[in-house]
């Protein structure tokens, strides 16, 4: 006996659930398969969701979604072992609804309930091992001994593309194309969070931290304030620890012990830790995103963006899930499910913010793989402030001081200008 569905979606994350929600809402018979024992159990991210897509597709999110705090303070830290330079944008009220902090596990549960209420069937604890492929066309999924037939298969397996890789449906992921993120959650009373971070009850902080957090490796730290917790983590490109002979474990431990963070986290205690892959390579080439009988969406498709200032994934995931649903509905109404019928997916993607933004920032990964950003420049910035703020009777004028430090750090003026221009051009 084999079950038959209109659509089988592999992965119950933001992208898969959005696709499932819209397909089921339009009356299609949808099953969403996920290997986690319960919804959200395997979802990890930093801590922030940009609201624009929710306003568009789930305007009720403000009342329903598990929002922790609306981001009021955007911070960028350049850190050395024992000092830091912080740039902060204290947002005006109008900016408040731009993004919010949330637990992805809870957010995914919320989306999952919506998908189920719309009629999608979500099966947890199911690992999809392979796809049924006949005459090069995907006809369903295989999980253990069970087969499941579906007219359309949506691959939303996330950044760790085990299924796509094992079926050679895309080139194998290289270590420098993904990063490993490790996240720790610290319990801290909301009043203490408000006091220490200078925010009101519903307002939060989103921070990116450069330099010391990754011990100079390509990567960085992040910090998000939840209602009663602080989420703190480090993301490091996967090839870096091996190359630099540092342990991920040490990076995480050292980061947390930085004097600045120690002050922010005083009296808190860790309640949770987790780790996850992050896509750094940019999106998959078009030919891998759509095939006979299937589509690839969300992080599995590489729809994640890191500009150095902004890290995004969930909004891309939701948008791609919606576009996949529209594509399938259109193809279904015409009765087609081959690559040709599904290729409108690419057209829709090109017209969406997904491609517009990924295209605009396509040089960001290259710019962000410049090691000086994580080593020399944070040190330069910290030394510079340290020097010009020192009062000992010796005059310290800005430019000569800067040049002095650059000489000591072996940073050439030309190199600095070049890197600056690269930054301007890529982000």
């Amino acid at each position, binding site marked *: *006996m084999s079950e038959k569905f209109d659509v089988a979606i592999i992965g119950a994350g933001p992208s898969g659930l959005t696709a499932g929600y819209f397909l089921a809402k339009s009356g299609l018979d949808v099953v969403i398969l996920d290997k986690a024992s319960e919804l959200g159990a395997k979802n990890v991210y930093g801590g922030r969701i940009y609201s624009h897509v929710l306003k568009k597709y789930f305007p009720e999110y403000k009342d329903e979604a598990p929002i922790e705090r609306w981001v009021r303070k955007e911070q960028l830290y350049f850190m050395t072992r024992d000092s830091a330079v912080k740039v902060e944008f204290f947002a005006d009220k109008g900016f408040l609804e731009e993004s919010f902090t949330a637990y992805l596990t809870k957010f995914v549960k919320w989306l999952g309930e919506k998908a189920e209420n719309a009629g999608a*069937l*979500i*099966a*947890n604890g199911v690992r999809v091992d392979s796809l049924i492929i006949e005459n090069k066309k995907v006809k369903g999924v295989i999980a253990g001994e069970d087969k499941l037939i579906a007219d359309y298969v949506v691959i939303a397996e996330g950044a760790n593309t085990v299924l796509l890789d094992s079926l050679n449906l895309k080139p194998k992921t290289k270590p420098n194309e993904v990063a490993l993120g490790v996240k720790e959650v610290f319990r801290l009373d909301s009043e203490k969070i408000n006091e220490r971070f200078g925010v009101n009850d519903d307002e939060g902080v989103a921070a990116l931290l450069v330099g010391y957090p990754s011990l100079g490796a390509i990567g960085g730290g992040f910090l998000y304030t939840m209602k009663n917790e602080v989420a703190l983590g480090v993301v490091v490109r996967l090839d870096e620890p091996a190359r630099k002979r540092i342990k991920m474990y040490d990076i995480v431990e050292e980061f947390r012990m930085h004097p600045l963070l120690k002050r922010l986290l005083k009296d808190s205690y860790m309640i949770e830790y987790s780790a996850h892959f992050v896509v750094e390579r940019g999106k998959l080439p078009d030919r891998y995103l759509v095939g006979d009988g299937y589509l690839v969406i969300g992080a599995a498709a590489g729809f994640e963006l890191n500009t150095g200032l902004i890290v995004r994934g969930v909004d891309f995931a939701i948008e791609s899930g919606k576009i996949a649903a529209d594509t399938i509905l259109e193809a279904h109404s015409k009765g087609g499910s081959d690559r040709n019928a599904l290729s409108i997916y690419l057209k829709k993607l090109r017209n969406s913010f997904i491609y517009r933004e990924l295209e605009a920032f396509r040089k960001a990964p290259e710019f962000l793989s410049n090691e000086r950003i994580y080593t020399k420049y944070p040190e330069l910035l910290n030394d510079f402030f340290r020097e010009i703020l020192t009062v000992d009777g010796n005059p310290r004028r800005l430019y000569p001081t800067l040049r002095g430090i650059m000489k000591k750090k072996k940073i050439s003026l030309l190199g600095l200008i070049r890197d600056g221009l690269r930054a301007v051009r890529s982000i």
Partner: protein
Amino acid sequence: MVRTLVGIKYSLQVENLSIDPKTREILLDETPKKMGDMDKRALEEAIRIKEKHGGEVVVLCIGPKEANKILLEAYAMGADEAYLIPVEEFHDTGFIANVFSKFYESKGPFDLVMLGGASTDSFSGTLGARIASLLNIPIIPFVSKLDVENNEITAESALDDGKYTYKSKMPVVVTVTLEINEPRIPKLKDILRAKRKKINELSVSDLGLGEISDLVITTDVKAYEEKRKQVILDASDPSKLDEVIDKLINYLKEEGVL
């Protein structure tokens, strides 16, 4: 044909207990939960009996609403009917046994009541005996091997002082240990079938029970505090190193380590 009633508990995963370091209280919301380990084996055994002899497996959980999750799992494993009696608070085994027995009477007759030998979290191991005494039927506790034949069961319990073999007429309450079987992992089809089944909900008053109060009230649960002595010997001055080593040796002798 054997009609079995299985009781399962929505238990704390004690290996993942979240504890407030200041108050030493258990953070119940943060601690993950699951179907009790022995309860799951009781369910597995009931399903195996059904597969061999025919019949039906009815599963009951008395717990919070989120316990739906383990009833869904029970359906996926092969249960025929699942019931949740939602209760907000933590209750003693007296309360649970009362509700359970009322359910037995209202949804009976059953041939067999299967339970875990003890719950994964509070581990009192007394529920089976309480239920048996309320229903006035026999109980065989801590069973590691079970056979059913012609309205009679043969059960083995490996206890501290030896291995016991019992025979009993049905209906009978059987509680099981971890050794009895290895529970199955539901397959895709089972999970899909489970998702389409309905979890029945009953309230305590649906069973015709009025106010039941707990006989034993848990007033406080606190994790043990592991106190370290945190003695620091200053060995920063190399010229005084011998002195510090002597101190360390003396200290270890005082503590009875050496």
